[in-house]
């Protein structure tokens, strides 16, 4: 059931974006031919541009660092189903600033359900390799977590990069690879751990 849902979400994102790209194709062709005539080098992003991404993918728990013992506990998590929404605005033609919210649905090796929802701000620097682009990013925020009847909120930092391809000016497809670090603090310090997670996410990004 879950696989079906994941497939459905991914298909929805891809099909929706392809349809939108097809609808915009004639206009794009005209604009491109006009632009080609007047501006030989075409910049993908301008100050004030907005990127809105719908994403789905998976994440892997890499381990939990135990500061008491100085060693890593095993992650004991199966790969997650992950959805992510992000909205970013170009402050300059290269610097992009925005926010993100995601939901990670993990199962532990004994099938306990672990839900993780990071909510934070993201900053990145875009390298324009038209029609491709790379945006190294850093995200900072709070991660809301739930395991069985236990809940917790902790800060997180996520570093990574977005690798994108723009078949048109309105739509682009991206792959995110991020390392998320979540230090988890308790009043009983023996329970403190720092969790490490690796995200692999594909997105349909709307550019307007």
């Amino acid at each position, binding site marked *: 059931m879950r696989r079906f849902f994941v497939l459905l979400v991914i298909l929805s994102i891809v099909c929706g974006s392809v349809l939108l790209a097809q609808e915009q194709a004639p206009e794009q062709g005209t604009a491109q031919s006009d632009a080609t005539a007047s501006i030989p080098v075409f910049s993908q992003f301008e100050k004030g541009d907005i990127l809105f991404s719908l994403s789905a993918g998976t994440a892997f728990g890499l381990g939990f660092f135990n500061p008491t013992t100085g060693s890593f506990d095993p992650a004991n998590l199966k790969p997650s189903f992950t959805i992510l929404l992000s909205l970013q605005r170009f402050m300059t033609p290269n610097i992009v600033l925005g926010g993100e919210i995601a939901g990670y649905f993990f199962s532990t090796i004994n099938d306990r359900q*672990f839900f993780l929802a990071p909510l934070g701000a993201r900053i990145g620097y875009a390298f324009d390799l038209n029609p491709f682009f790379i945006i190294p990013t850093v995200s900072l925020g*709070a991660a809301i977590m739930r395991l069985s009847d236990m809940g917790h*909120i902790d800060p997180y930092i996520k570093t990574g990069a977005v690798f994108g391809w723009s078949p048109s000016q309105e739509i682009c497809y991206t792959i995110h690879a991020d390392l998320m670090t979540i230090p988890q603090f308790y009043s009983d310090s023996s329970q403190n751990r720092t*969790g490490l997670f690796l995200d692999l996410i594909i997105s349909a990004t709307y550019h307007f």
Partner: protein
Amino acid sequence: MKRFIPALLILIVFAVSCDNGPVGIFASIGSESPIEYKGTEVFKKSTPAAVVSRNGTLYAVITTLWKKNGNTWEKATNLPSQAMYATSAAVTGTTLYVAFLDSNAHSLGVFSTTDDSNWTPVDITFPANDEQVQQLLAVNNKVFAVTTKAVDGKTQYNLYHLSSGSFVSLIRTGTNLFSLAYVGSTYYVASGTTIWISTDLANFQESLTLADDFFTSITSIGGKPTAVTAFGKVYWHEGGWYNTNALTKSSKNLYLHAPVEYNDTLFVATNTVVRKTSSVTEVSPIAGYIELAFPLSTTKTQRDDNSLVTATNTVFSATIGGTALSMLTLITENGKPTLYAGSVGNGLWSNRNENGSWLGWQRETD
């Protein structure tokens, strides 16, 4: 907008961190070990009612009667005629007593066996047509039965004592399941807000009555009758009644039941239940169990929010999870103390102690 974003960042990064749960989430996940389960889903998701031992053989009441064979459980065969379900079991000496129901959940009464094959009805007139046997208890090598009966739309609990082949009514006014202990020639009977004492099982007198709390279990621990309550207190009798302060989590009193003791540690099950008194209706905070160190003290809370965490509890949380316990009992198998925990909808678990160390919770399988 320019002020909002930095303010939001600061708020998110520094201001949001709450402490909820005795066990760290990452610590709990990291401490998991894979559980191989080859049994049926029915057994895995069952709610065990009782585990007892007779002559070194373990029996469990999980909808029906089960018997442990090696490392796995199997349904007991050769049950009494028409017996389909079991509600409770108790053992005195080498005799196993089980309360059975037929396929329509009508009570068949209590049967006994000494060899697993030949079952004898204990008292063919028991229970009465309008009563159901809910619990069998073995105290001081005697068998007690607790039945329920609907009276004016409410459940009335009745306590019986098996005497000369017949169940004799003792106290008919219980508002909750009865629990018994026998210490120093005296029976201590707890139900609802009251503990009664009796030396002859004929005459009872009130020994302790609570104003706004009720007893869930009483047992003999360390030679003292020890009772736990629905609002987190432990009472014990030592010349007079003493009690701890209420055990709390997040400023809410725990719901305690089924205490067992091993090696100066009291294991007490906790449940998340809706409980009511004349002035309070609330949900108790955590499910699982806690450990209390002896000696118990009247002057302080035995454990507060922070010290509810124990190594054993962490392992428990990583395996059984936060589900409520239907039963918790300590049985010595081949000289090794073993805790058996019935989890509501999550099967039967055990934790064996070898050479002074608990080996960790393992799922029992059929």
